[in-house]
């Protein structure tokens, strides 16, 4: 009996020769323990050394290997071939990002948006190490812990229809991280982050489709973070109308 095989259709784009991206079909051995990343690595090692794709940890921690698999944004290290076999697997670079080469996308815009929301603890005063730990209760931690699980894999940006329609939208992961630091009891940077988060391009471009939360491989709920930020920003807006509001 011949060994089982699986067909992989991979979108190729080699800027020096290709006018437009084209699909290339590869036949790889089928192994029920393999994930899509294993198949891509097999192609790179044994069939076609020119295929480019990003990956690092192979264990859904680094967030490098996000691709579209049969039209859905997924981590290729977290998606088993057995869920598709004997059907074909179609692998494309993440939607809503420019293609740099093959499955590699240009993430510059995302990185800028991420930095713009200042995703780090901002304290009112510099805290010397000698001041000791900044204590937090388990309840304090629980209020934002899920948002710390984000690995910046950008699957939510590929899933979000607003990203395609409104490229200036700050987007789910960055807004969820802004919310994560706003909720942190050690942090005092909310006002600085609101400059971006409460702008039209911030939470207000979101129409609450919720696809971001559905595709997140780390069970973060960016859609909830954005809705909570909308509520808080609305309260701010009305407060500012009051004579004693700032």
């Amino acid at each position, binding site marked *: 009996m011949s060994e089982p095989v699986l067909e992989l259709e991979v979108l190729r784009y080699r800027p020096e020769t290709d006018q437009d991206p084209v699909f290339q079909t590869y036949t790889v051995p089928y192994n029920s323990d393999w994930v899509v990343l294993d198949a891509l690595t097999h192609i790179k090692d044994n069939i076609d050394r020119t295929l480019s794709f990003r990956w690092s940890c192979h264990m859904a921690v680094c967030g490098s290997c996000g691709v579209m698999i049969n039209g859905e944004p997924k981590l290729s290290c977290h998606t088993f071939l057995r869920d598709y076999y004997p059907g074909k697997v179609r692998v494309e670079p993440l939607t809503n990002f420019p293609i740099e080469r093959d499955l590699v996308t240009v993430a510059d815009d995302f990185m800028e948006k991420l930095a713009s929301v200042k995703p780090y603890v901002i304290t009112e005063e510099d805290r010397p190490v000698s001041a000791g730990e900044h204590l937090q209760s388990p309840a304090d931690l629980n209020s934002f812990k899920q948002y710390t699980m984000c690995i910046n894999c950008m699957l939510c940006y590929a899933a979000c*229809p607003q990203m395609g329609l409104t490229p200036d939208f700050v987007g789910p992961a960055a807004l969820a991280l802004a919310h994560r630091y706003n909720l942190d009891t050690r942090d005092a940077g909310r006002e600085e982050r609101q400059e971006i988060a409460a702008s039209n391009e*911030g939470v207000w471009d979101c129409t609450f489709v919720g696809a971001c939360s559905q595709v997140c491989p780390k069970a973060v709920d960016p859609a909830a973070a954005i809705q909570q930020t909308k*509520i808080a920003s609305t309260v701010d807006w009305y407060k500012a109308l009051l004579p004693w509001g700032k």
Partner: protein
Amino acid sequence: MAKSNKPIVWSLFAGGGMIAAFVLPAMIFITGLAVPMGLLLENALAYDRMLALVGNPIGKLVLFGVIFLSLWHAAHRLRMTLHDLGIRSGRVAMLACYGVAGLASIAAAVVLLSI
């Protein structure tokens, strides 16, 4: 980036969402199911009772709030859905959605005030 003024539109949308989710089903249940099925008093929706409800200023205000916010919610949701579907002719969609909600709200106000 400037802070957005969308909270005005969105707070009415959010308020309408609460009403559409919690108050409207209760009203549909009372008027469409409970009374016809005899779960409530037979004359619960009798003309004189309803007239008294609508005649009371607080009754008018509550009914107008329910109608206006629900319509606004529907208008905003529809506009956002059109946007998601790629229909981005902003002004036409905006006028159609908010216009219908606005006219229907004005009609409701006129009717309520005339009682």
